[in-house]
């Protein structure tokens, strides 16, 4: 059965090799970078003293675990997973489905596998049987993380499928990031690593237990503790997986019976605002996009993430200054929000429309207007996010004045011109259907896999403006270079728009087919 499922998945992937080749190249670059990190970890562990290892190894293993569990959520993509709705009708024992699901969790932690493998090699160079102990402990540690990740993912996906709860969930996840940084801010930063390391000496903690076994410190107790944690993770993972099998996500996301008429009327007025600025069909498409995106759970969750995660990461640093933040603070948070919103707006702008994208080819409307309208809607949300960030920093007393706010708005606009230009091209060249309900489905393939390379290039013109400010210590030079970047961005945007429209006209069949095609039994990132 497992082989049949994997074969069905392989067969559904066979027509997309061109696109997947891009993912492969992007993956190679990404994992090569992580291979360097892993080698550095290996060298560090081989050279570390026993005291240093006892202090830092539990923390390192905790970091590995945290990355495995939290990184997929922080990147708004929860990795590959079984599409249970497609498999539940078949008489497949749940334990087999669970086994596949656990193995699929490897896809979200390949970086950590590299780090653990290199770390094990590094430790084995310490001698004294460390290599043998690593050979036993590291697989158990991997199993613990996989099982825990399976349970966490099932739990999170169910929570995030409920109306309203998913937005609260996104806020709570942001808190996971902000709490340690706030602790640092409120004076816990002094020798924090040593104190955290010191407080992690109990073998009751799985990371410490694993470290103890690896280092040969009371290995029997450590091994028992680690084994107990792994068994507990198995039961947790299995329990949550079973609950997900019985979860009705459609009912969880259904429209409530009672909706306040006042709220509906106010929202309706807001959605109609584009008609004050533009004429139909542009205004109609912008309005439709605003309504659609605002009601799409996945978009709303990422919108909240863009707003809160940026602040969560940077606010404590800025608060530490006991005064207005550095001028770059607001810009960095705004650009972070801009990039995070990309995957649910401009990089794959037809993703949520799926088969309905064909409507734009059937209706008497030019495709240029469709793309412009989608970009306008994306910009509305991008600027809404930035304005919320500015308002929050103002309330917290971190705002560095109106000039800083204006600079942030201008920089966001210039960055957006380049990103939207590339996004329009990517949207018609490498489209993929997105699930509006589930955070984990669709949108992470091919072109999107290259984003970590595209962002630095797309943001380079704005970076040059900051370089000019730094090099010449001149606001005028900054303004001039930024204005030049804006003009260049405008030209680039119109040229890319023209290319995207031509591409859409010639590839309309492939475009709609790619958006309509569903995944195999395993849904992608």
């Amino acid at each position, binding site marked *: 059965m497992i082989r049949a499922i994997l074969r069905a998945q392989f067969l559904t992937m066979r027509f997309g090799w061109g696109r997947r080749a891009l993912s492969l190249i992007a993956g190679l670059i990404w994992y090569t970078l992580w291979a360097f990190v892993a080698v550095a970890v290996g060298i560090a562990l081989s050279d570390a003293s026993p005291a240093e290892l006892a202090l830092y190894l539990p923390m390192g293993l905790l970091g590995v675990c945290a990355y495995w569990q939290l990184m997929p959520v922080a990147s708004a993509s929860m990795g590959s997973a079984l599409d249970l709705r497609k498999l539940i009708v078949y008489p497949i024992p749940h334990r087999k489905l669970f086994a596949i699901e656990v193995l699929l969790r490897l896809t979200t932690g390949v970086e950590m596998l590299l780090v653990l493998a290199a770390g094990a090699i590094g430790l084995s160079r310490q001698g004294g049987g460390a290599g043998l102990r690593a050979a036993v402990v590291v697989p158990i540690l991997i199993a613990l993380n996989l099982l825990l990740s399976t349970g966490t993912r099932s739990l999170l996906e169910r929570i995030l499928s409920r109306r309203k709860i998913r937005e609260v969930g996104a806020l709570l996840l942001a808190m996971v990031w902000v709490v340690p940084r706030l602790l640092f801010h409120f004076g816990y930063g002094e020798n924090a690593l040593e104190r955290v390391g010191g407080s992690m000496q109990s073998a009751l903690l799985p990371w410490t237990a694993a470290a103890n076994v690896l280092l040969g410190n009371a290995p029997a107790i450590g091994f028992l503790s680690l084994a107990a944690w792994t068994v507990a993770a198995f039961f947790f993972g299995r329990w949550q997986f079973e609950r997900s099998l019985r979860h009705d996500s459609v009912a969880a996301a259904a429209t409530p019976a009672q909706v306040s008429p006042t709220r509906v009327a106010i929202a309706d007025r807001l959605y109609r605002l584009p008609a004050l600025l533009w004429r139909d069909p542009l205004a109609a498409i912008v309005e439709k996009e605003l309504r*659609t995106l605002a009601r799409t759970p996945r978009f709303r969750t990422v919108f909240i993430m863009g707003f809160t995660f940026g602040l969560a990461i940077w606010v404590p640093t800025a608060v530490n200054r006991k005064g207005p933040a550095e001028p770059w603070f607001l810009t960095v948070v705004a650009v972070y929000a801009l990039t995070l919103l990309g995957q649910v707006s401009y990089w794959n702008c037809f993703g949520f429309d799926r*088969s*309905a994208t064909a409507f734009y080819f*059937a*209706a008497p409307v030019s495709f240029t207007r469709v793309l412009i309208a989608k970009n306008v809607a994306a910009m509305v949300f991008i600027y809404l996010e930035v304005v919320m960030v500015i308002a929050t920093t103002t309330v917290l007393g971190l705002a560095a004045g109106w000039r800083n706010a204006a600079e942030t708005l201008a920089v966001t606009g210039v960055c957006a011109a380049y990103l939207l230009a590339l996004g329009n091209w990517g949207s018609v060249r490498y489209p993929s259907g997105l699930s509006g309900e589930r955070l984990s489905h669709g949108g992470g393939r091919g072109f999107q896999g290259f984003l970590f390379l595209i962002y630095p290039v797309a943001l380079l013109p704005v970076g040059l403006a900051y370089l000019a400010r730094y090099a010449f210590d001149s606001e005028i030079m900054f303004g001039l270079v930024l204005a030049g970047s804006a003009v260049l961005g405008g030209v680039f945007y119109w040229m890319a728009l023209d290319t995207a429209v031509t591409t859409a006209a010639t590839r309309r069949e492939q475009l*709609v087919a790619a958006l309509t095609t569903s995944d195999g039994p395993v849904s992608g990132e």
Partner: protein
Amino acid sequence: MSAAAICARDLRKAYGAKPAVDGVDLDVPRGSFFGFLGPNGAGKSTTIRMLTGLIPADSGSIEILGFRMPEQELEVKARIGLVPDESLLFDRLTGAEFLEFVGRMYGLDRATARSRGRSLLDLFELADDRKMIAEYSKGMRKRVAMAASLIHHPDLFLMDEPFEGVDAVGARLMKNILQDLVRRGATIFLTSHVLEVVERLCDHVAIIHNGKIVTSGRIEDLRAGGESLEDAFVRVVGAGAPRGQLDWL
């Protein structure tokens, strides 16, 4: 102006080496209720998609309501109502919002689009529903798709399996509306696998098989000899004997 609502000549479309539509000639008279029939995979949907500009033809000519495709694509699109086989519905809009959006895309002002949308929702018994289209049943989706095809009062309707998934009451309602439209001078071009429906509604039919039109004309002529449309259809496309061994079943 051409007397035919649809006039296609030597229409061809291939996917790789396999021709999906292979030299189709079609003449759909204005004001006719035209049934376009064929077995699964015969090329019906591909033909409709080419007629509506959803996909480009490899070769051949298409003239719709006197306008040439693809040169006068926007003029054609503004005058046709489309109910495709796959969903062109935006799931996160309510039925009312979707109809207003479609109306505006076809050049109606907001007030007219909204007013017509309300009337259509009443007609299709979807008026009280504030649910998003994502929560609609298959039959409700078909009904709202048909309502959308009506909102700009087109002269020609292209419908791909419009009754699929619709319950008996909904289907009866839709058939009545379509018959009324034809009485008022509209042209309807539809595909359906339910031959009884085609037999009852259509005055003209064409049958496509393996990408080629195998017969075309008035429905009475096709049923010569008193046979039913189903008999005529099976005779024309040929009913194959069951293939393969099913002894295990």
